């Protein structure tokens, strides 16, 4: 109903199947007949999986949870695009009305050294958690806060911080980048916190530690091609990377000044 077309599509799927992290994988072809245009991409996969189970086969594994585009669990490459063809859309919010009858759809997991494949379309993105735990926070214990309105924050700063903070940590930026760089993810958190007065105190340590962790995880360098931002389902801006680079430079300058000061 919703949308109301009621039309069905007949599709072919080529899906990456890989049993475990140490196994080699391969593309396997499936027919997907009678897919409702109104169903979501993941509901189409549910339908395929139901049939696989009834044929005594293992269903296709993929991470997913909220199915509202906000938890960041889902994500894989669809015809070479992270999260598929629609801009600002996660796989779970992608609907089949965006595909054509008779089309072949190619699905494979995020490919990056720092995101090892777990099974089929599932990858291990715990590197992102480790980047956050290296400094993606403001050091305030519960119970210490002043009144929330004690420090006014200019609306443009608050809005910019919010826009950076909407990153869902799905990993599309890394998967789309030819270098598998995590600069967009890391910089979104750095900008969000550096833009707010509460986050300025530890801004230098934060950016240093987060970038060091990012490098240690095996993500590649940034060559500013911008595919990360173009593929981001939340439209996180490339300006965040510029801001993170400024933060890094400022931190380096501060350290040099501090070192020089010690010499006087």
């Amino acid at each position, binding site marked *: 109903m919703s949308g109301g077309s009621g039309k069905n599509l007949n599709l072919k799927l080529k899906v990456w199947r890989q049993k475990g992290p140490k196994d080699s994988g391969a593309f396997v072809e499936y027919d997907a007949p009678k897919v409702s245009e*109104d169903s979501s991409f993941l509901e189409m996969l549910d339908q395929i999986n139901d049939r696989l189970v009834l044929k005594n086969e*293992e269903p296709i594994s993929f991470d997913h949870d909220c*199915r509202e585009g906000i938890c*960041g669990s889902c994500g894989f490459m669809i015809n070479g695009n992270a999260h598929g063809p629609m801009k600002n859309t996660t796989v779970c919010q992608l609907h089949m009305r965006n595909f054509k009858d008779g089309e072949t759809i190619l699905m494979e997991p995020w490919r990056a050294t720092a995101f090892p494949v777990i099974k089929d379309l599932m990858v291990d*993105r715990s590197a992102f958690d480790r980047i956050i*735990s290296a400094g993606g926070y403001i050091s305030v214990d519960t119970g210490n806060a002043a009144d929330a309105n004690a420090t006014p924050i200019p609306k443009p700063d608050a809005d910019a911080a919010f826009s950076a903070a909407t990153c869902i940590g799905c990993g599309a930026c890394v998967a789309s980048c030819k270098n598998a760089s995590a600069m967009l993810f890391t910089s979104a958190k750095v900008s969000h916190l550096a833009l707010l007065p509460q986050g300025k105190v530890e801004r230098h340590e934060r950016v240093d530690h987060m970038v060091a962790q990012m490098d240690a995880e095996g993500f590649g360098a940034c060559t500013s091609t911008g595919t990360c931002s173009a593929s981001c389902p939340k439209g996180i801006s490339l300006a965040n990377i510029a801001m993170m680079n400024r933060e890094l430079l400022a931190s380096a300058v501060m350290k040099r000044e501090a070192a020089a000061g010690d010499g006087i």
Partner: protein
Amino acid sequence: MASILDSKIPGGPIESKWQNHKFDMKLVNPANKRKHTVIVVGTGLAGASAAASLGELGYKVKSFCVHESPRRAHSVAAQGGINAAKNYKNDGDSVYRLFYDTVKGGDFRAREANVFRLAQVSTQIIDHCVAQGVPLAREYGGLLSNRSFGGAQVSRTFYARGQTGQQLLLGAYSAMMRQVDKKQVDLYARREMLDLVVVNGKARGIIVRNLLTGAIESHEADAVVLATGGYSNVFFLSTNAMACAVTAGWKAHKRGAFFANPCFTQIHPTCIPVSGELQSKLTLMSESLRNDGRVWVPKEKGDKRHPSQIPDDERDYYLERVYPSFGNLAPRDVASRQAKYAVDSGRGVGPTGVAVYLDFRDAIARLGKPAIAEKYGNLFEMYEKITGENPYEIPMRMYPAPHYTMGGLWVDYDLQSTIPGLFVAGEANFSDHGANRLGASALMQGLADGYFVIPNTISNYIASTKIEPVATTNDAFKAAEDAVKTQIVRMMMIKGNRTVDSFHKELGRIMWDECGMGRSDAGLKKALELIPKLKDEFWNNVKITGEANYVNPELEKAGRVADFIELGELMCRDALERKESCGGHFREEYQNDGEAKRDDENFCHVAAWEYNGDKKPQTRHKEELTFENVHLATRSYK
């Protein structure tokens, strides 16, 4: 007969109960805190905030989540906002008014003392979140912005566009990850709790399945906190995320924790209607939309005209008509019920006729499209992605859907269950919302429990309880591990003919038809015949492919559905026994012209169910509720 349930509400006037209790509670000295381990299951708002705060205090915390990362917990999807009695608007708000609105909104089925504490700490939550860098919406002067929400006549809701839950969760998640970095919190991701371990009457650990390797692991602690969310997925189609389950709470129930008010579920009025048989979940559209959207259906039955062709005098703006003082901001239970009446009377809209309109035409004319886009842009986009229709031009179609569960494990004032050492926080407990939760109160309760209540009451428990050392080699751990392994083997061996989802859908259909927005004696009895049959078929005919010793989503789902089936039966029994209507629990036999008719004489109590083993039905216990501050009255929003 005296109740065996002791709510342990502190004495004194309601305003000073929490303050006095905090002073009376025993403390653990900083050097001793590091010798104690606390397990926190779940990393949503309640779990992540509890893990962070306990870590800050110096306890050793073990945090568990089913997701690959704590940041994926379903609190992330909450849209609208979080209430706090800041009175920044100078519109007459106060702690007392938030308390009053919440008790009334819950149709007088919540514990006054808990609700008052919730209203008190609400202001600290906002302060703390802002200090953490949560980017809540602001006005041009740089101060925080507020909006109004259903069931209240003041503007006390703080928000971050339509992503408030995400921003608050990322705040709690970062605070917790800071403790991970400091090695105060050990994180165990992709672990599902499959049993609670009770040793000498105290909760001492959990059994989890590692969802990557299939390994069954034992973890011991001095206390266990469950912050495992709600059970709306018992209906199959709900606004909950796919992994939301009752399993952790249900296993604790089977180990002795009473389950309170299981039939109190919230059917949220504004969700995108069901579109087809293959649909996997429903999507909520924030209640904040009712600030500017007007709800209507055609006055005539079967009016199939395009909404733009139906003139104003042929539209029934039924919420404005029936509830002139609250209008479109009537509370959720009331708004849902009215939507059901409109559809049942044959005036539903859209291709299936099972929907009502939420129309922004007048708001766009009054405020302009840019102002509406600024407030609700992301929600309008989400609606268009799902339905293919542009809500700036065509009214949204909405219908109620299961969204939140007020019922949950019974807890006392300290949020401790009937098993000593087992604490329950957030949606997983039954405590603060009575029979209906007001909008923007779930985020408030999750964070109140995790940041401000649990850290105090756990310390008191540890300081005042003799907790002997226990190892995972203890017999109780071995027995629980064996039980978990046996269940998994048994499920894998069935090799029947039906998928797990087919059972889940069948259960959901029974629950929605008989234990949804309207419940009747006959319907509930029918459900109580159907569910045991479904359970029996499940255990003889479910089909799970793959192996148990690595990633196997079908096996994970099967365990959850097995528990939902048992819970569904208890929900129906609870609904059948509660012979009154209150909040979201609407028994068709007990009504005044479509409005809920409470029976304070006989049902002014919490029903808490005690598990008696597989062969015997649960026993219903009562905790009587007394209202000393907000007087029992018929709830009216007219």
